[in-house]
Structures are given as C-alpha cells and as structure tokens.
C-alpha cells in the first residue's frame, strides 16, 4: 500500500474521526513495529465490544502488532466473537460467513497473486475454534491440501462463545457446556498434529501469556506461508465468560493449564521452512 493513499486531504482533518487521524499519524504501516513497541503507536485494533479480560481480544491485539507487513496484509475472519472485533481493524479484512474463511482466503490469495505478481500481499485467515476445527474444517484442511500460501490462525477459546457458550471440538474432554450437558464425550481435536501430517510447513501452538514468543510464531506463520505453503498457528485464549472465571485470571488460567499438562506450547517446522526461517532471522540480526 502506498502510504499517501490514506493521508487525509488538507482541510478535512477536523471532520475525520479521531481514531482515523491517529491511525494516519501514528499507525504502524511501513514502520516495522512489533509487540515490544506496543503502547507507543496507534494500534491496528480499535475499541471493540468483547468482554473484559477476553483472552481472544488480547491475542488478536498481539497478533495484529506482530504482522510483519501490515500495510500489505489482508485478513479473512469468520463468524464468532472475533467477528465483533474485526470491523475495528485497520487492515482490509473480510467477514464472509461461518467457517468459510480458508476458502475465501484461497480465492483472495490467488487473486492478489494475479494482480500483484511482484508484490507481497499476505493473506491471513484468523478465526475461532468453531470456525476452524468444526464447521470450517473441510475448507481449512483443503486449503492445506492444495498448498495455498495462506496463514491460518485459530483463536482457540475452547467453546462457541459468541452463541452463548456451547461445546466445540476444541473443548477439553469432560467439559460441561451447552450442548454437552453431561460433559464433552471426546478429546480436544489435535489440529496442530493434523496440520503437521497434512503438510503444513510450519505449525505452532502458543498463547498470549508469552507475548514475544507469540509474536515470533505469528511472524513465522506468515513468512513461511508467503514463501513455502500453508501454515497453522493455534493460539490458546481462555474465555472468562463461558468458562466462568474472573476476568483478571485469563493469563493465570493459561499457566495453570500448562502446569497441568493440558496445554503445551510447541512448534513443528519442516526442514524447508527451517532453512527459510534461519535465513530470514539471521538476515534480520
């Protein structure tokens, strides 16, 4: 994106919303900013209607700050809590329907390749666990099978939160939620391992409890997708509302699950991806 495009025309400063003015003057486009710089620039996410203490909102905020190329990134979202936040995101983003984010992203990425063969346009699918592992699983998996150059990020709050707290494929076994009144009967879907098996070049599981490692994962997810093929990042973002804990406990919950062994940060990197990352990360130093 040419930065001149979104500059405010002289004489219109006063009628543009404050948030937009701030974004133009202090936004992160083309500045190579990251998570460490948070608090010093206008974030790509604007005030959103998600719950206090929302792990998903926190994750989304960190993910957006980690984008390696925000001025040329297009996000495809899906229905769910995150779809309430996306209208306030300062990069182009599409909400089409529930679960079809990876299909939309496939068409979009190929279209952008046709239109901008010389330019890098990152397409990132960011959706909840219901959209990624349940209703949209076929489209997620097929985008991987087809080796689409798109980064898939799951915001895993282990429930259908937006519809009122129903059990999802990513809920841990035994969890009592709506539609699993006697407790969930089968284990959490091991999508990272499935992603690895079907050939995602980079697969990672992270959480907002560790912002800088998460940033690294987000960047790797996008950079490998750009150059090699599909990548998958699963971000554990507990939901205080539906799992009924206090908003200030969101990060403590992650740490507790880590201690219990029911949540584990991990990365699977193919040799090809490792080579690329070594080259890119060394080049940066």
């Amino acid at each position: 994106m040419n930065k001149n495009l979104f500059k405010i025309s002289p004489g219109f400063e006063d009628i543009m919303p404050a948030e937009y003015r701030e974004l133009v003057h202090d936004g992160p486009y083309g500045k190579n900013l990251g998570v460490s710089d948070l608090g010093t620039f206008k974030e790509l996410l604007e005030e959103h209607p998600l719950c206090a203490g929302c792990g998903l909102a926190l994750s989304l905020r960190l993910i957006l700050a980690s984008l390696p190329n925000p001025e040329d990134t297009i996000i495809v979202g899906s229905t769910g809590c995150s779809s309430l936040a996306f209208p306030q995101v300062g990069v182009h983003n599409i909400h089409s329907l529930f679960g079809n984010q990876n299909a939309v992203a496939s068409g979009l990425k190929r279209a952008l390749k046709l239109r901008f063969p010389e330019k890098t346009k990152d397409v990132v699918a960011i959706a909840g666990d219901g959209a990624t592992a349940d209703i949209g699983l076929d489209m997620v998996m097929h985008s991987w099978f087809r080796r689409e150059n798109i980064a898939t990020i799951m915001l895993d709050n282990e429930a259908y939160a937006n519809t009122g707290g129903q059990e999802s494929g990513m809920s841990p076994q035994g969890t009592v939620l709506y539609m699993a009144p006697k407790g969930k009967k089968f284990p959490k879907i091991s999508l990272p391992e499935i992603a690895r098996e079907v050939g995602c070049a980079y697969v990672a599981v992270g959480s907002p409890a560790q912002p800088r490692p998460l940033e690294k994962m987000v960047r790797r997810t996008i950079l490998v997708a750009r150059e090699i093929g599909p990548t998958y990042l699963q971000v554990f973002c507990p939901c205080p509302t539906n799992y009924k804990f206090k908003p200030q406990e969101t990060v403590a919950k992650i740490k507790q699950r880590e201690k219990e062994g029911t949540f584990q940060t991990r990365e699977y990197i193919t040799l090809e991806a490792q080579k690329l990352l070594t080259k890119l990360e060394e080049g940066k130093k």
Partner: protein
Amino acid sequence: MYVAVKLEDGKCTGCKLCIFICPEPNVLKFSKEVKKVAVNEGRCKGCGLCVTICPKEALASASIGN
C-alpha cells in the same frame, strides 16, 4: 458504576508488562520521555489483568464516574 484501572504514578517503572497483557487496544500508553505508562480510563473495561501482572503494584482497579 464503571470500573477502570488507576495508576499510581510513582510506582511505575515502565516495564510495559501491563501493556502486553491488556485485551483492550490503545488503553495503556507508554511515554518514551518519562518512561512510564499512562491509562486511558475511558477505554478501560476494568478486567484487572494488568493489576495481576504489575510487579510494582502500581495498578489498582477503582470505580470511576457513576
């Protein structure tokens, strides 16, 4: 009654941990000049996550307005 976090200016060392844990964008700002954090109370939802992480106990939830 609305709850928001309040900062006790003197205690803040500018470690920015609170900024990294806040689910709300553009609430906690960092001033490079004074190396301290500032809170935009109008945008804070008072979840208290920052309170739990601050090593200096510089942040506390408080009620604001009516």
